[in-house]
Every structure is written in structure tokens, then in C-alpha cells.
């Protein structure tokens, strides 16, 4: 046991003294926080920030709306002085087709006009629709649509009100919006506000934490094993400890470093959440699940990389052998949005029971929707409790043979033979 601890201690120190680890430790939270802050800033800019004046052309075929349209757009410009809209009203041509002018559509296409609306002759009576020509390039364009729509409706409603002899004051009273705030009931009473951004980003945050934490730390296992092999110190080490002791020590050291990493990252994230007042948005149980899944996922990847390292002589060899396996490991990253949208869909459930990615998919689903069926959580732990020791066992057998082999990396058939006969 003291030998295992000696190996673990060296492995741990080598990992945490590694520059890449330190960079990961500090830079990743800094980048993530900085990135989050920037994206929030830009999102705010996109919705509420200043914009160039946008040209809107309206062709009013009802002939009733000109004044009210001018008033509606003027009101918009008073409310949002940073996002002005310039309105140009044009007279309908006497016998123009109902589809609107090709020439104006071309100008919209060219970008000199942001939007072109044709108000049908019977729009006020509700018997005709409005057409709106636009070229959607970004979110701001989409937002402009609803602004224009709102202005047109305001003008139409104003005309209708006058026909019914409603005074503008009464009209304003009728129009007054009631304010509306979303409150998620959460797991329990007093769960606090749970904004949509947190609901979308929290699962990704946990997934990212697990993936990066697992691979950043276990990278050291891979490079360490290859270094020991290529520097030929491995024989000296194996004359003092058994391959199993060596492998166990390496894993313990890596797990310790892994906890430091996710501790710092998780701490930084919690601190940031505290500052923003959304710390209560993620239930405590998710953190408990995360820790458990992290240990399983960590050991899974650690044993995979140790076995891989033992088979290779150079890092380059290892990388080329790793590529096919990485396709499986990045599946949760590729599919994260889909999984968070449908955390109990068939796809998510199937991925949950693919042992190498079970921890990542499960934490994604649990963080997205804490009410996923308990039997699935239980089943995932049973699966991991069986598959992780199996993976460790296979890795130990490959490790024991591979670590003394030099030359060409083994073929899949040779690997199978090692596992059976080692």
C-alpha cells in the first residue's frame, strides 16, 4: 500500500506541477467567466444597444393609416432613441398588383431598405393581410420584424378606435400592458429564480467541467506512461512495484489532481453564480450526482488512456490510436443541446447507457431536468459499477503486457490475446 501511495504521490505532484495543468486550472475559469461576461454584454448590445437608422418603406393600400403610422413609428423612436427607424410612406399605384413592387423588393435585397411593408386595402376591417418583405441576416433583423408589426398594429387599432369613438385616453387604458415575470417553481419552495439562461447553460457547464476535467488531468497518465516506456525506466519501476500497484497509484494520483481541478473550477463557478445571484438555481443534488459521475467517468478515461499509453511508444502513435475513441467521447458535446432540450427522449436515454459516456450524458440530463426517472439514474450507476471495474481489469491486463513491449503498436487481435492470456 505504501508503494501505491508513493506512486500516487509522484503522479499527483507531476500532474499539478505541469504547466499545462496550471494553465488549465487558472485560465479555463478565467476564459469561461470572461467569455460568459462578454457574451452577456454582446447579447445585451444585440437587443438593447444602439443601432444605425433603419429604413422602412410602407405602402398603405387602405389609404387610412398614414397619420397613425407616422405617430406609431415616432412613438417607437421616442421609446428607443438608440434604435431609430426611418419611415417612408409611399402612395399605392392605382392598379398595382397586390403582391407589391418588384423594385422595392430589389432594394430590400440590395440592403438599401431594411423592410418593405404592404398594407392590404381591407387591413383595418381585418379582411386583408399585410405583406412584409425583408432579408433576414441576423437576430436584429428578426427583432425589427416584430417592431414593425407592432407599429402597424398600433396604427390599425388607432383607426378602429376612432371609428368606435373611443378617445385616445381610453385607448391607452385599454392598451396598457400588464407586466409579466416568469418564476420557475423549482425543486422546492423558495428555490429562487431560475432564468432561462441558467437552465440552458447549467447542463453545459457541468458537461464541460466533466469533460475538460477528466481529459486535462488524465492526459498526464498517457504522457507519463509513454515517458516511462520510452525512457526505459519502466523496468526499474516494475522491479520495485507490480504493474497493478503502478496503475493503481497512477490513478489515485490523477484522481487527487482531478478533484483539485474541479474544486477550483467549481468554486470559481459558484463564486460567479453567487455574484450574479443564480447560485440557488442548481439544486444541491446535482452537485452530488456530478461528484459520483465524475469519479466513474474519470476512472473510465484514466484506465482507457493508461492502456493506450502502454501500447504506444510515442505520443504521436497514441494520438492516432486515440482518434477513433475520441469520436465516442465527444458525442455528448456534439449532442448536448439536443439532449438538454429532450432530456428524456429516446436518443438521450440510449446514449446514457453507453458506458464510456454514461457519466457525461447523465449529468447533462440531470442538470437539464432534475426529474428524470430515478430508475434510470439507478441503472446508470449499476452499469458504471459493473463497467468501470471491467474497464480497469482490461486496462490492467493490457498495461502489464504492453508496458514491456516495444516496436509496432499491437493490432486489435493482439490486444484481445493480451487480455485473455496476460
Amino acid at each position, binding site marked *: 500500500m505504501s508503494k501505491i501511495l508513493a506512486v500516487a504521490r509522484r503522479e499527483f505532484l507531476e500532474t499539478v506541477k505541469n504547466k499545462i495543468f496550471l494553465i488549465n486550472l487558472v485560465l479555463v475559469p478565467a476564459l469561461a467567466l470572461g467569455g460568459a461576461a462578454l457574451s452577456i454584454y454582446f447579447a445585451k448590445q444585440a437587443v438593447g444597444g444602439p443601432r444605425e437608422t433603419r429604413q422602412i418603406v410602407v405602402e398603405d393600400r387602405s389609404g387610412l393609416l398614414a397619420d397613425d403610422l407616422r405617430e406609431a413609428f415616432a412613438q417607437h423612436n421616442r421609446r428607443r432613441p438608440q434604435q431609430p427607424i426611418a419611415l417612408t410612406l409611399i402612395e399605392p399605384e392605382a392598379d398595382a398588383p397586390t403582391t407589391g413592387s418588384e423594385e422595392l423588393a430589389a432594394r430590400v435585397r440590395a440592403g438599401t431598405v431594411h423592410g418593405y411593408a404592404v398594407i392590404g386595402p381591407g387591413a383595418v376591417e381585418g379582411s386583408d393581410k399585410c405583406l412584409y418583405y425583408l432579408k433576414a441576416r441576423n437576430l436584429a433583423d428578426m427583432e425589427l420584424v416584430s417592431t414593425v408589426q407592432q407599429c402597424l398594429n398600433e396604427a390599425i387599432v388607432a383607426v378602429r378606435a376612432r371609428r368606435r369613438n373611443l378617445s385616445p385616453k381610453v385607448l391607452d387604458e385599454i392598451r396598457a400592458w400588464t407586466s409579466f415575470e416568469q418564476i420557475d417553481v423549482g425543486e422546492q419552495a423558495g428555490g429562487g429564480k431560475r432564468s432561462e439562461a441558467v437552465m440552458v447553460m447549467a447542463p453545459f457547464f457541468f458537461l464541460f467541467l466533466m469533460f475538460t476535467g477528466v481529459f486535462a488531468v488524465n492526459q498526464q497518465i498517457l504522457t507519463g506512461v509513454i*515517458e516511462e516506456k520510452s525512457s*526505459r525506466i519502466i523496468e526499474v519501476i*516494475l522491479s520495485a512495484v507490480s504493474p497493478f500497484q503502478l496503475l493503481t497509484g497512477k490513478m489515485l494520483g490523477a484522481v487527487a489532481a482531478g478533484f483539485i481541478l474541479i474544486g477550483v473550477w467549481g468554486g470559481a463557478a459558484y463564486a460567479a453564480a453567487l455574484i450574479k445571484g443564480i447560485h440557488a438555481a442548481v439544486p444541491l443534488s446535482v452537485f452530488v450526482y456530478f461528484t459520483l459521475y465524475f469519479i466513474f467517468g474519470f476512472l473510465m478515461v484514466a484506465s482507457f488512456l493508461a492502456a493506450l499509453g502502454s501500447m504506444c511508444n510515442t505520443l504521436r502513435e497514441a494520438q492516432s490510436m486515440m482518434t477513433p475513441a475520441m469520436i465516442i467521447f465527444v458525442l455528448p458535446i456534439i449532442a448536448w443541446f439536443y439532449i438538454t432540450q429532450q432530456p428524456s427522449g429516446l436518443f438521450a436515454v440510449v446514449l446514457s447507457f453507453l458506458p464510456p459516456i454514461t457519466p457525461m450524458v447523465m449529468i447533462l440530463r440531470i442538470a437539464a431536468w432534475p426529474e428524470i426517472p430515478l430508475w434510470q439514474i439507478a441503472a446508470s450507476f449499476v452499469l458504471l459499477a459493473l463497467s468501470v471495474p471491467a474497464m480497469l481489469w482490461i486496462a490492467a491486463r493490457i498495461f502489464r503486457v504492453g508496458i514491456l513491449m516495444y516496436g509496432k503498436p499491437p493490432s486489435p487481435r493482439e490486444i484481445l490475446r493480451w487480455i485473455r492470456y496476460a
Partner: protein
Amino acid sequence: MPNPSLVLDHVTKSFGSLRAVDALTLRVPHGCIYGFLGPNGAGKTTTLRMILDIIAPDSGRIEILGRTPPAAKDLIGYMPEERGLYRKMTVRAVLAYLGAIKGMPSRDASRAAARWLERVGLADWAGRKVEELSKGMQQKLQFVATVFSGPQILILDEPFSGLDPLNLDLIKDIMLEMRAAGKTVIFSTHMMEQAERLCDFILLMNKGRAVFDGTFAQIQSEYESRAVLVEVEGDNRFVQALPQVSAVRAIGKRLEIELSAGADDQDLLRALLQRTRVRSFEIKVPTLHEIFVHRVGGSHE
């Protein structure tokens, strides 16, 4: 041989269809230097690795100081043929780590490391990284790493390959000191001269089997000499015609004479003395190299 330090009893190891070691039986006494000799692929390294429990034998029994190989790991200092240390670690840290996995308390390890580094002249380098050391210094550090934990048995795989002359003497001194302290040194080599000078016992291996096992004197006596080296004064052409002589080869001033069947070397000396003065007369002892080539035959490269 009471209480041998190492016993191998019908030890066999195969790799696929290749029998690397075939029913090898061996007893190594305390306080001796035991040389494993044989061509490449004879099974020397595999035998050493089994003693070290780096690989397990398919069958047979290995006992080291009364223990099984896994239980004896801390009693053995091992230097593999392919040498190497953690390049990015400091000299001190490497030794501390190797001491720890050899089960040494850290205080003992650092004291022993300091003493040995002092002895080989690396004391000033203790805080440097291994990769900063010259090749010769790294060789010294490798010896230190092998012996500083105070092993009862030293196992060295091809210890003389690639050493500079100073380090060659150093490792030989260490081997002799170990023997003098009653410890056992086992090493493999294909450098016959070194083995001849150092070994008390020799195991000659070929194709996984023991071809010979015993002392150097024993193996020489098995090869009764049929040749003498002589140097005589004046014209030596008469020698060829003597009845005791079957063949003559000139080596500088000396003649290597192969005795004819049934001839006695002392009769030859008398015959020579009757004709001329004899400056030197030496019964040729077969060298290990010759025995080796003879025993192992065509398979020796």
C-alpha cells in the same frame, strides 16, 4: 550448498510458440558473482525478469532468500540493459521516488542517496534535473539508483555495454564490494573477458537452456587442452617434423602447436629441449570465448 540466495527450479517461460526459457534449474550461493552468458535471444533477460517478478514464469519455482519473487522485490537492486531515468525530475527527487517504491523510509533514502552521490562525485548535482547530466553522469546515477537502497542481491543486465572506462571500473568495484559484503551479484553479458575476470560461477545459456553451469575452473578442465604456446631460440622449422606435433601456427615469435593424438605435452617439451633452448612454454587454457563458441556453436553471432 546450504541456503542458496537464489533457487530456480525447472523454470519455463514461452512467448507464443517461442520457448524463451526451458526448464531452467539453478542455485546461486551467497557472496558470489554469477555470470549469465549466452548469445542474444538465449533467454538471459527473460530469466532475470522472472527473478524480478516483472514477468511470471509459465511453470517452475523461483525462490529468492527464501521468499517468492513478489515478496523479494525490495531485496533486489536491478539495472536493466536499456537504462533510463525520469529526465525532468531532479537527481534527488528520482532517488527519493525509487527509494520510496523500494519500501525505504524517506529519511533513510535521502541519507543513502547523499552518501552514494558523494561517492560517485555527483553530490553537487543533486538539485539538477537528470536531463542536465552528461551521459557518463547519468550512467553513474543509474548505478546509484540500483544500489543505494542496500539490496541483498544485485541483478545487472548487460552492465558493461556502453560504459566509458571510468564507469566500467566503478561498476566492477561496486560488484566486488557487494561480494565482499556477502551479497550476491548476478549479471548477464556477452563480453567474455569481463566475465572471465569477475565471475565465480558461470551459467552458459543457449536457446533457453542451460548449456553449462559451474565454476570457471570446472568448465576449463572439461576442455582438456590440446595446444601449447612455445617460443624457442633460433630456427624453429624443425618443430613441424616432431612426432608429437600435428599442426603449427606462428603467432609473432611464438608458435601455437596442436598436439597429435595421444601425445603428451611434457614429451614435446623434452623433445624441444634436446634440439634448442626454450624461452617459454605455455599450456594453452581455453578462453571462455572459445568454450562459448564451441558449446553454442553456429548459433553464436
